[in-house]
């Protein structure tokens, strides 16, 4: 393919170069105790699972966790394969999940085909490839250390977490290979906390095992309808929708039964003086906002962030503008100086400068109930 002389997004190119350099594999390969696994598994169990052979373990896709940012690193000894197993519509090794805790108060999980004590994928020859433990799907634990998450995910029938390398035969996309008929699965799973006893979907009730559920079905692309909603049945007899509660979301009042908000562990007063200065650069005003962190943060999902409500936004200044961002990505020490630059080009992403009107902003810690300070300005 002919390459254009210049890229449209040189900054993206630069960032991808940085990411490629950071993730450059070291020469040493990951060695998995495959032989040990093979010895542990009896021939009978392999035959039952429909697995012909073991292949190489899947290489790591995400960089190793960082102890001071993101979900953190895996807590040694915390990896737990749930006893929950769900059959695939075509048979073979069942589907299962494993969960583990991380050093920054999160839990991560993996879904795939299960053989012995391993979660992995099957290749076209039916060989099983174990997945490495990596922090790609994680959520903050609640204040009691419980994981809450609900996901609908399209996956390949072999357990592969990256679907759409082919297009479903029922919904072909020009120019892309078609999957074998019925090769895509709708995998629906959730971690519902200790108060849940069952789920109901499409008029059928399924028991919850170890506070979790896992449903695997052929993806039906011939129907325009969205998958049937899942209702959670709680031990007290009440029902509620199975929703994916993003616990870092500052919205309160939408958490499931049994969930203990992280914010309850934060002091009620987190106010701190803000320093807010403006500087003109060309036709634009660039604002610098800084403050000293009133509280240390060391948990995934608990961060300082900035919320700005503007008069108008968008490319033609004709849309309502609300910006939330600048989350501190990792540990923050108490008293640490945090500084951010507010520029119309970067944060609002349009080159025309600030839209006219009054802007009101605030720095919050985790949620809107914990306001560090407020700021505002008027753009003429």
């Amino acid at each position, binding site marked *: *393919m002919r390459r254009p002389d210049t890229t*449209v*997004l040189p900054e*993206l*190119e630069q960032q991808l170069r940085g990411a490629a350099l950071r993730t*450059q594999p070291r020469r040493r390969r990951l060695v998995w105790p495959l032989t040990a696994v093979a010895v542990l598994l009896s021939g009978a169990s392999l035959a039952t699972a429909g697995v012909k052979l073991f292949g190489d373990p*899947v290489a790591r896709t995400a960089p190793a966790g960082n102890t001071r940012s993101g979900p953190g690193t895996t807590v040694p000894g915390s990896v737990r394969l749930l006893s929950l197993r769900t059959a695939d519509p075509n048979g073979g090794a069942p589907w299962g999940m494993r969960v583990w805790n991380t050093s920054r108060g999160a839990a991560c999980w993996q879904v795939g085909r299960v053989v012995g004590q391993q979660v992995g994928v099957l290749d076209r020859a039916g060989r099983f490839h174990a997945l490495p433990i990596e922090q*790609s799907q994680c959520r903050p634990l609640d204040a009691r250390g419980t994981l809450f998450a609900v996901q609908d995910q399209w996956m390949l029938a072999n357990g592969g977490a990256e679907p759409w390398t082919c297009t479903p035969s029922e919904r072909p996309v*020009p120019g892309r290979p078609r999957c074998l008929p019925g090769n895509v699965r709708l995998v629906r799973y959730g971690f519902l906390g200790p108060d849940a006893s069952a789920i109901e979907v499409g008029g059928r009730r399924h028991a919850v095992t170890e506070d979790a559920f896992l449903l695997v079905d052929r993806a039906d692309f011939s129907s325009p309808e969205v998958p049937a909603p899942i209702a959670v049945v709680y031990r007290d007899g009440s029902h509620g929708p199975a929703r994916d509660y993003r616990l870092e979301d500052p919205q309160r009042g939408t958490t499931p039964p049994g969930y203990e908000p992280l914010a309850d562990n934060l002091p009620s007063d987190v106010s701190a003086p803000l320093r807010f200065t403006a500087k003109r650069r060309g036709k634009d005003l660039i604002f610098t906002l800084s403050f000293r962190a009133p509280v240390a943060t060391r948990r995934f999902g608990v961060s300082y962030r900035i919320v700005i409500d503007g008069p108008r936004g968008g490319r033609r200044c004709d849309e309502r503008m609300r910006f939330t961002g600048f989350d501190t990505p990792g540990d923050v020490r108490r008293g640490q100086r945090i500084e951010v630059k507010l520029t119309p*080009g970067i944060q609002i992403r349009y080159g025309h400068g600030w839209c006219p009107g009054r802007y009101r902003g605030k720095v919050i810690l985790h949620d809107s109930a914990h306001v560090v300070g407020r700021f505002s300005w008027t753009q003429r």
Partner: protein
Amino acid sequence: MDDERLVREVERSADAFVELYRRYEQPVLGYFRRRVDDAELAADLTGEVFARALEGLRARRDIDRGFSAWLFGIAHNVLVDSYRRGRVDDEARRRLGMEPVALVDDALARIDALGDETTLRGALDALPPEQREALWARIVDERDYEEIAGALVCSEQVVRKRVSRGLATLRARLGGECQ
């Protein structure tokens, strides 16, 4: 250097991945711009596609249908995920420690131009399905004949014939509208 060789080089060289980005940035931006009504959104989706592609290559995923087919598969996946979640997925970029990209008017205008194929789409829609499929893959998504043949499970010769017939029909149709 062909795509397959670059894909193999990615393990040893970040430059190889950047070269793949340079080759496919505009086709992917165009792919998204034709499917979402916003250049900024198209840029956002493109960032996530290449981040996922980098992760996939690092994981040595099988790319047996060619890099282009595999990359557009990821693009479709990102688009579907984003529709489903109501927001652009950024998990791969977060995992890779990538920041949001600043966009200026010039870039937005270029992205808009990449997606400007309203007339072509109308004319393409009127073609027989097999010609439309081949033409779309060749002209709009800028795919190689070999890749298209692999994707459509037919010979390269058949794809060339379909593209050629489709172009002739388009020429007649679009030309006719101009007279």
